């Protein structure tokens, strides 16, 4: 789960990481009230989970009430790269001496947290990594030992931060590590981490990704999920406990098992089609899950044809067939379906479908054949 900037900053503050004071606001009135409390100059920042807010005009400095009103009015409702701004964060403006970059990522390859620090902050770090990789100091932390002061010193000296901020930079990295571990994050990023005129450091931005699987241990974080920010289909799938990713195309896809679904997307693409979604009904999918899945897929108006690709292991193909039959009863779909059932109880499943004689449902026995058929049907409709 990705947090909004201000949610990340509030999480940082709980771990003693210095951040500018601020308040979120969903209306111009609230924004003005927040600014009056915080004082001027302050910054009005669009809260959307996407980069490039500044360039898009989503971050503005306000020196008085009128300017806050003006900027908040302009930013609330603004479209930034496809996302509508529903919330702004009003924070006191900070004096910036230098801009650094700091992050901790969950490094799957090394099986350890990876800390990165650079004095090239305030810009796209991937660009820095490409152009000047030596400008980023990197260090893995043994997760059983945890962050030690020497990690902070080593990173600070290697990144060549100003000598008089080696300690505060190390202290901030230590607290970021605490937050990373305590909140079970997979990413915490501060860009820029600024050096202030008082020669302290402060997190001027916050990017935090939390592990969804661990949210049950962090109810206060779980509450931060903003369903209104999710796409309609994604929200629907989430409520039904399905793993769903919306894509751009017009062929609805359902399979069981992440690898098989990904493979199905590839095979459909190879056949010239464009998948509309990734939907994993999961191992051991029961009839209800299948019915729910059909609902989710068909709620996307772009879908012109649907491919069911099931390889039954724990999942029983007869259960899948029953779910599909039930879904047809409830929804009465108007687009064609291609169904490929293989594996456990595949014969029984195919038999059930044959008996149900569902309108516009095509049974195929191979994955490749099914893909070709669904691409054909989508193109024809």
């Amino acid at each position, binding site marked *: 789960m990705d947090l909004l900037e201000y949610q990340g900053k509030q999480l940082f503050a709980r771990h003693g990481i210095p951040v500018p004071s601020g308040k979120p606001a969903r209306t111009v009135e609230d924004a003005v009230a927040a600014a009056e409390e915080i004082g001027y100059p302050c910054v009005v920042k669009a809260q959307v989970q996407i980069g490039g807010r500044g360039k898009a005009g989503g971050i503005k400095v306000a020196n008085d009430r009128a300017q806050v009103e003006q900027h908040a009015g302009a930013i609330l409702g603004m479209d930034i790269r496809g996302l509508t701004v529903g919330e702004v964060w009003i924070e006191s403006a900070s004096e910036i001496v230098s801009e650094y970059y700091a992050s901790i990522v*969950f490094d*799957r*390859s090394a*099986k*350890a*947290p990876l800390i990165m620090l650079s004095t090239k902050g305030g810009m796209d770090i*991937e660009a820095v990594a490409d152009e000047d990789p030596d400008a980023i100091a990197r260090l893995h932390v*043994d*997760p*059983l030992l945890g962050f030690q002061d020497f990690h902070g010193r080593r990173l600070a000296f290697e990144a060549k931060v100003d000598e008089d901020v080696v300690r505060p930079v190390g202290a901030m990295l230590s607290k970021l590590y605490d937050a990373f*571990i305590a909140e*079970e994050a*997979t990413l915490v990023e501060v860009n820029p981490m600024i050096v202030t005129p008082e020669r302290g450091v402060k997190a001027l931005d916050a990017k935090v990704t939390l*592990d969804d*699987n*661990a949210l*049950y*241990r962090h109810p206060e974080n779980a509450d931060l999920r903003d369903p209104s920010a999710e796409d309609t289909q994604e929200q629907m799938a989430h409520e039904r406990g399905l*793993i769903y*990713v919306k*894509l751009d195309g017009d062929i609805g896809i359902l*399979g*069981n*098992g*992440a*690898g*098989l*679904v*990904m*493979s199905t*997307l*590839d*095979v459909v*693409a*190879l056949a010239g089609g464009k*998948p509309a979604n*990734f939907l*994993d009904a999961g*191992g051991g999918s029961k009839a209800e899950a299948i019915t729910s899945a059909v609902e989710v897929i068909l709620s996307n108006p772009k879908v012109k044809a649907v491919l069911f690709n099931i*390889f*039954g*292991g*724990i*999942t029983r193909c007869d259960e899948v067939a029953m779910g599909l039959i039930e879904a047809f009863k409830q929804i009465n779909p108007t687009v064609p379906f291609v169904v490929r059932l*293989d*594996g*456990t109880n595949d014969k029984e499943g195919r038999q059930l479908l044959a008996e149900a004689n569902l309108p516009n449902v095509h049974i195929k026995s*191979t*994955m*490749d054949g099914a893909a070709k058929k669904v691409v054909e049907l989508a193109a024809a409709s």
Partner: protein
Amino acid sequence: MSILVDRSTKLVVSGITGREGTFHSLRNRDYGTQVVAGVTPGKGGQDVEGIPVFNTFHDAVQNTGANTAMIFVPPRFAADSILEAEDAGVGLIIAITEGIPAHDELRVFNTIKKNGRSRLVGPNCPGILSPGKATVGIIPASFFKEGNVGVVSRSGTLTYQIGNELARSGFGNSTIVGIGGDPVPGTDFVDVIGLFEADSETDLIVMCGEIGGDAEERAAEFIAASVSKPVLAYIAGFTAPPGKTMGHAGAIVSGSKGTAAAKAEALEAKGVRVGRTPTEVAEVAISLLGAAA
């Protein structure tokens, strides 16, 4: 031969008294696996269709000599159960559980690695099947038969798909190892490919990768350096968009890294054949091994 599980496997199942735990434990036993014990705190002294249940792994190991554990408990209890199995001296721990928090996996992985006493396979994996010998986990064993193709995969159903295509072409398997789709798998492609390389029964190694991480790239390096047997690969997720987790917690393209294209390229650069569809994998296997018996 075969790898990891065979007739000498003595299995203890954590979570054996749960509905799914009971079902799959008995299926594993029906296949021929020696299922010697279960662990459920508070149910010590009971049995599941003759399989004795203990309160702790230590009791189970001490009383039955179990050498392999299957973890079938819900995610919030799984890390603890894996660590208990390791502490009790179980040499091979196979974690089926899906949805274990990533930081739990980190602690578990590093503890097991530093102690150097046990191997963890999974979590979020379908288990290990050595056809004709033993199965541990949820792989639908009836689709596979004994043979000389070793399969290692990050994905369950995709493995069945490919295994089934191979089976239809007449190939059997030495062992099928599901290493799981999680960010921190206990056992990696490199480990399993190394075991297959040393296994006299395995003539061809098939690896099923997917987007995310760099396990496939590391496998490519390892294969070039240390593997003499033919290796055939499949990678799922060529069309997966960056930044979206594709079902598996580990399956995500981050920035410019972890794409299927990059993985296929890395493997092909080291001489590993990469099939573009599961069907193509079976076709290449036939071409490599000749028509099956």
